[in-house]
């Protein structure tokens, strides 16, 4: 415990103090008086500045207050406080235009104690009073602010408010940039990994299915396989189809070979063996030839003689038909030629008669035409022209007068002449035409006669023709007689030829069949089947071997199909495995990434948790501090002090700490009735203005007293405005108690003169070494501030005597 007492104060040009002021302070009680504006508050805040290096109440009002500290008229200023007692020292600060230049002050603990609990500036008192006016309970209520500032809870409040967003992850996302990103990344990876795990599981299941398929196939094929999905090559090797394919190729070849053999055999077997025994056909022909061949040959040469120009077919049947047709033709020709020769002869004689008539007619026409002038026509035309020129009876041609003749008129004469001339011309034309026709007929007849004369054969030829026709008809009759026999002969001959060809063919086929049988038998032996037995039907043998081969072929094809399936399965497994490997790789990568992200999140979460813990701790500490400060001890002390100053007031102010823990702990102001009973309302509602002032003052004193006596100083700046505000006598008694019984050095400033005088009396030294100092501040216009100090010492009272 440090019993520091103030010794003296030196102030130069500080705030409203002008010039230099020296104030002794080394007394139990220092009573300061001055009119308003004389510099009381400046003097007290000078003490605060010197001891703490700042002025808290001014700082609250204006953070840049420091530059306002110096007196307006000065260029520099200073404050200095000397202390006595333990660790006596001098504290102070110098001021410049810019603010506080240098300072030597208390250590922070003492400084804050001074500011919080030793010095009651008017501003703080005003604030205390305000607490009662406003009954709000929120964090911004004046009470909350007062408590916060008094207990320096603002830092804790800032921590609590600042860390509040950590409680809700949505706010954390808002505040921390990377948080959402991290969360999203984690969610994404979680989903991705889950999907991939499912995919991987599916693939592994699929591989299992394929493996069991391979196992089934292997057992079906009777292959020993080590079913290890990591030894696909070995499995593939074991299930190699090469051998079977080779076998299949062999079988295919064999089958093809068999097919070829089979075709040969079928071809060989297709021959009609009955053709071999057709001997009768030949005999019939022989018999027929014996009967008819001679006749046929004779007839043929006869006919060939008749028809020398014809080339007749060799086959008897067609020869007969052809010869018959030609003979008929030949006969007809001969007959018709003979008939025509007769007709031509008759015509010739008729034509010779006709031509005689035509000749005589031509002679007649010629003679008539000779009598007619051939110029008649032309003359008639000229004369008709001349007619137009005839005028009168004078001839225009000869100029003779026709009238002289006296046979009519000249015109009629000319006209008549023209008419005559014209009719002669017409007759000539007709004759000419008839002449031409007669001449044409004549010519025609002449040509006909010539032709007929040439065409008519001679008698001998006609006789030959008749003979030829008779011969031809005779040959026809003969031929018709044997035509059926010839046709039968022809048929028989054809049959004979066919029979011979069939025999030849059958013989060659039989040879092939035998060879085929041998081949078949050899083939059967080659494929390790039973050879074709003697007497076994070749077809049946072929079928037997064919079915044998087919069966084997089917078997191998089935095997191959199985192998193909198995190998497909191996292929699928291979691709599945590579997919699985890829997926595993990706999965591994994602899991690593997830781990990284999750670790980052864990770390961030850890920091978040730490923040939350700090906040919880802050809350606890804050609650602890409030509980510690606003406890029953404070309430008892406050009540004691309040009752001292307001003994008549039935309501007592008190703090209550709400029991509920749900929200931030905050003391609440209430009033209790002095005689117990239910709590009243807030002090603002229950107390008079004077008692509110009393409550504020006693609260400050309680807060000062409720903690250990770190700094035994109480500095009150005009705590009461007049005698009426507070029971001043009681206040004086209280101050005396604090000063004289509890060792506090009290500095109190008042502006009320009466109050000053009263306090000077009340606070007079009561025992040796007790002391009182009064300071009177005065300042005239344009004068430096003056400070008059007066020291009062102890004086033994002698006036009281027993009666």
């Amino acid at each position, binding site marked *: 415990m440090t019993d520091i007492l103030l010794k003296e104060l030196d102030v130069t040009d500080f705030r409203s103090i002008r010039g230099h002021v020296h104030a002794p302070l080394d007394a139990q009680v220092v009573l300061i008086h001055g009119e308003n504006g004389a510099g009381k508050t400046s003097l007290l805040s000078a003490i605060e500045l010197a001891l703490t290096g700042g002025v808290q109440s001014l700082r609250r009002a204006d953070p840049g207050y420091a530059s306002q500290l110096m007196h307006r008229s000065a260029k520099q200023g200073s404050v200095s406080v000397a202390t006595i007692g333990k660790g006596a020292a001098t504290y102070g600060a110098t001021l410049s235009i810019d603010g506080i230049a240098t300072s030597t002050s208390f250590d922070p603990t003492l400084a804050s104690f001074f500011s919080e609990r030793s010095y009651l500036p008017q501003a703080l008192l005003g604030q205390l009073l305000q607490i009662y006016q406003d009954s709000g309970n929120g964090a911004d209520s004046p009470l909350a602010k007062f408590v916060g500032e008094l207990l320096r809870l603002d830092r804790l409040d800032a921590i609590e408010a600042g860390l509040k*967003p950590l409680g809700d992850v949505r706010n954390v996302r808002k*505040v921390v940039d990377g948080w959402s990103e991290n969360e999203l990344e984690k969610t994404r990876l979680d989903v991705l990994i889950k999907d991939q795990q499912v995919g991987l599981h599916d693939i592994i299941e699929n591989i299992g299915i394929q493996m069991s398929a391979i196992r089934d196939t292997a057992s079906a094929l009777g292959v020993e396989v080590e079913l290890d999905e990591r030894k696909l090559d070995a499995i593939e090797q074991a299930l190699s189809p090469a051998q079977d394919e080779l076998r299949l190729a062999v079988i295919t070849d064999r089958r093809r070979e068999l097919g070829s053999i089979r075709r040969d055999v079928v071809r060989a077997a297709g021959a009609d063996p009955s053709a071999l025994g057709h001997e009768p056909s030949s005999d019939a022909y022989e018999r027929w030839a014996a009967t008819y061949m001679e006749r046929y040959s004779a007839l043929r040469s006869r006919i060939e003689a008749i028809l020398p120009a014809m080339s007749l077919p060799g086959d008897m049947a067609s020869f007969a038909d052809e010869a018959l047709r030609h003979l008929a033709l030949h006969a007809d020709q001969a007959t018709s030629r003979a008939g025509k020769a007769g007709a031509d002869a008759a015509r010739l004689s008729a034509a010779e008669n006709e031509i005689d008539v035509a000749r005589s007619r031509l002679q007649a026409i010629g003679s008539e035409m000779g009598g007619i002038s051939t110029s008649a026509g032309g003359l008639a035309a000229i004369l008709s022209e001349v007619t137009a020129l005839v005028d009168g009876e004078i001839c225009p041609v000869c100029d003779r007068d026709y009238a002289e003749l006296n046979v009519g008129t000249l015109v009629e004469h000319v006209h008549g002449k023209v008419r005559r001339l014209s009719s002669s011309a017409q007759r000539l034309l007709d004759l000419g035409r008839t002449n031409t026709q007669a001449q044409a007929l004549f010519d025609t007849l002449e040509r006909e006669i010539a032709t007929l004369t040439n065409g008519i054969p001679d008698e001998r030829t006609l006789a030959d023709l008749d003979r030829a026709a008779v011969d031809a008809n005779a040959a026809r009759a003969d031929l018709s007689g044997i035509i059926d026999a010839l046709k039968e002969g022809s048929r028989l001959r054809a049959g004979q030829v066919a029979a011979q060809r069939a025999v030849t063919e059958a013989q060659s086929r039989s040879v092939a069949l035998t060879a085929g049988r041998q081949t078949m038998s050899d083939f059967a032996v080659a494929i390790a089947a039973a050879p074709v037995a003697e007497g076994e039907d070749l077809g049946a043998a072929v079928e037997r071997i064919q079915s044998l081969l087919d069966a084997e072929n089917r078997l191998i094809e089935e095997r191959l199909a199985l192998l193909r399936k198995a190998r497909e399965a191996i292929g699928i497994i291979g691709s599945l495995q590579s997919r699985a490997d890829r997926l595993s790789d990706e999965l591994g990568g994602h899991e690593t990434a997830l781990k990284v992200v999750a670790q980052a999140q864990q770390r961030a979460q850890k920091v978040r948790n730490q923040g939350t813990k700090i906040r919880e701790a802050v809350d606890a500490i804050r609650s602890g501090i409030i509980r510690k400060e606003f406890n029953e001890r404070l309430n008892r002390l406050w009540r*004691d002090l309040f009752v001292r100053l307001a003994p008549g007031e039935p309501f007592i102010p008190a703090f209550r700490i709400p029991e509920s823990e749900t929200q931030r702990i905050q003391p609440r102001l209430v009033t209790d009735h*002095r005689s117990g009973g239910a709590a009243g309302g807030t002090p603002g509602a229950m107390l008079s203005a004077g008692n509110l002032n009393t409550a504020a003052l006693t609260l400050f004193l309680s807060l000062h007293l*409720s903690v250990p006596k770190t700094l035994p100083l109480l500095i009150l700046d005009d705590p009461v405005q007049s005698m009426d505000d507070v029971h001043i006598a009681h206040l004086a008694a209280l101050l005396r108690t604090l000063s004289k019984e509890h060792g506090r050095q009290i500095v109190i400033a008042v502006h009320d003169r009466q109050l000053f005088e009263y306090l000077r*009396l009340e606070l007079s030294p009561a025992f040796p070494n007790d002391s009182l100092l009064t300071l009177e501040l005065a300042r005239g216009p344009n004068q430096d501030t003056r400070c008059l100090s007066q020291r009062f010492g102890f004086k033994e*009272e002698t006036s*009281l005597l027993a*009666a």
Partner: protein
Amino acid sequence: MTSSPLIAAIRQRLNEAGYDDLPTPFRMAGVEFQFTGALRGRHGRALDLVLLVDTTAGLFGDSDGARVRARIQALSRALDVTASRYVLTVVLAGATLPGDIDSLADTARVLHVDTLPVNKAGVPDLDRLEDCIRVLLPLSIPQPAANEQDGTAQDQLEKALKNVVDAATIRTIMDAAEHGDEAVTTAIASLIDMALVSEQEKA
């Protein structure tokens, strides 16, 4: 001496608080003053002169306001005359006096004790009696328990989170707290961000 139990109780309480009975009547500046009771403090309260006035069954005109006032004012003047620094406290015990008793406050500290408060058990309630004269009684300051000395908020915080949160984080947060809650939020956000980012950069 009066036999009033109220006066007796007050006197007893004051005696216990270090006030000595003065013989009555006493003389001041040659004038004799008679009161039901008079006490004087010691040491720091050596200048306290307490006068007891029994307004209920008062002798010496105690039940008459005007006479009481006149007597007190006479005493006050006598003190002034002798330039005494005594401070007068008048305890009016009993019924409220008729007359202009309020003006007494100008010359002396006046305390009223109406009746002797009795609790439910019928025993005199000294606490309530003391309330009325509390200003005369010594102030007892209850001492805080030793374990309540926990140091500053930061010390407490570091102590509370010693094995839970590393000191650097606490210091960062506390430093940021000087600049308000937003600074705290920014500080913790950047701490979390650092925790998130650092590993990503490594990866």
